[in-house]
């Protein structure tokens, strides 16, 4: 029974991964990617690793896929199609993928997998939480904190990019030049006269 479910999930992943890269409509590609992500979480569910499966659903299917679809909505139109892939590109890409597949498959078949004989770990959220915040042996507090610093940096970066230069704003003027400033000192602080002259 489990075997059949695995084959179903694996074939979903393979078929939709292929469709994701070959589809010429960008939103369809995003939706195929969503199917791949959901099927991956199905495999985690099959392994009884419920927590990771739910994380996969929240972060990838519910977070990143929504973000991709949202950005597609903002930037593209329904009738747009991506350019056709030339035969040369198709051939070279296919060859590289084929070589990669052969390398991976041969490595997997040649490697002898041995069960390490360790006791089964508890996949409950409680055990994962303790492991995540423990600083003892097998504790992950350092990577956990490093990743949160990375997230903070990303957030600050996003705010800095999204924020328009405050010094350009003028209370009196109703229209502001929103074009992206090309000169180097556009983001330096200006006096009020300079802003006025810019706006004229």
């Amino acid at each position, binding site marked *: *029974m489990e075997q059949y479910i695995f084959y179903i999930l694996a074939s979903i992943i393979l078929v939709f991964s292929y469709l994701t890269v070959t589809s010429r409509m960008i*939103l*369809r590609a995003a939706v195929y990617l969503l199917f791949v992500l959901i099927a991956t979480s199905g495999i985690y569910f099959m392994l009884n690793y419920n927590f990771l499966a*739910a994380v996969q659903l929240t972060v990838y*299917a519910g977070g990143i896929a*929504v973000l991709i679809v949202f950005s*597609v*909505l903002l930037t593209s139109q329904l009738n747009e199609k991506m350019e056709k892939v030339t035969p040369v590109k198709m051939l070279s890409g296919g060859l590289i993928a084929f070589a990669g597949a052969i390398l991976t498959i041969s490595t997997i078949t040649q490697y002898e997998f041995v069960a390490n004989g360790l006791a089964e770990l508890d996949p409950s959220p409680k055990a994962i939480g303790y492991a995540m915040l423990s600083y003892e042996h097998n504790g992950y507090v350092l990577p956990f904190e490093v990743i949160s610093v990375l997230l903070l940096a990303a957030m600050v970066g996003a705010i800095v990019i999204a924020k328009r230069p405050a010094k350009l704003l003028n209370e009196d003027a109703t229209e502001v030049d929103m074009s992206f400033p090309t000169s180097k000192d556009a983001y330096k602080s200006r006096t009020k006269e300079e802003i006025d002259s810019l706006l004229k």
Partner: protein
Amino acid sequence: MNAIYDFSILTAWIHQWLSGLMEPTAVMITEMVIIGTILILFVAAMGLVLVLAERKVAAFFQLRLGPNRVGPWGILQTLADFLKLLTKELITTKSADKFLYNLAPFIVMITPFLALGVIPFAPGLQIMDLNIGVFFITAVSSMGVLGILIGGWASNNKYSLIGGMRSAAMVVSYELSVTLAIMTMVILTGTLSMSEIVNSQADGWWIIKGHIPALIAFIIYLIASTAETNRGPFDLAEAESELTAGFHTEYGGIKFAFFFLSEFVNMLIVSSIATVIFFGGWMPFHLPFEWATGFNHIMDFIPGIVWGFGKVTFIIFLMMWFRWTFPRLRIDQILNLEWKYLLPMNLINFLLMSLIALTGFYL
């Protein structure tokens, strides 16, 4: 707890009966089919009942009678509407992206089905008891917005696109508050499993035991989940005065019914989560005091299924009350409410709850 009200006896009996008839694999498949059928029938029945309830409640708040022609007191009105929608011709606009256009109603409909799988409505009446129950629900319900986005884009209609965008901006931000409010309560429950959360409230519901922070979390949850289900006063994704019908403008017949039904099923789900986390699920009303043992014992005689569905009905009524009382908000007001008020309040409440859980200052 009275054993006669426990559904696990019934399910165990069915399982035994089926095991005597066929092989384990066949038993599993048969049970899956039975449960799936029951789930579909349950959702369809709940959809009919809730749509009728919504119309009756709306009529009550607007001093009208509401549907009153089909059947006694108009109770067959939604059934007639459903049959009409079922027999309608399915029309696809010429310039729509056919595949995505037809896919969107299913994405919207599948996520509530997944979420219903882990909700305990009565003792033993739960499809599967995952050890991450609450987290699973938040995970799958975060995918529901994709259906709205894809449907809005694939219709190739300005109104649909704007509706989908509004909905996405709103749902993505309010998801944060819903999850944080649930997290606040998980500090008290100490577990994510739905059945264990219910069992932890055998001596009193968390909204009573957790007093002030639990109450704040409940209010935030109620506001944010109303927004997450795209219901009024947050229904600007389908604001009919501006966007005709928002993201489902181009949908007709049963595909429209899917969008329509999913709103009501989502309402059922968020009310069930609120019931399980704040009001003890199917647990009777118990007081965590010495002198209340007699009272607690009397409450045990009301079946769990009555408690479960009674509380869910009450919260659904609250949400309908909101819809027909408050005027619709603007998109900037909605986003301000979330990011400037609900989220900071939620974070402070989270800290408060941690403090209370650490000091043991709860009943």
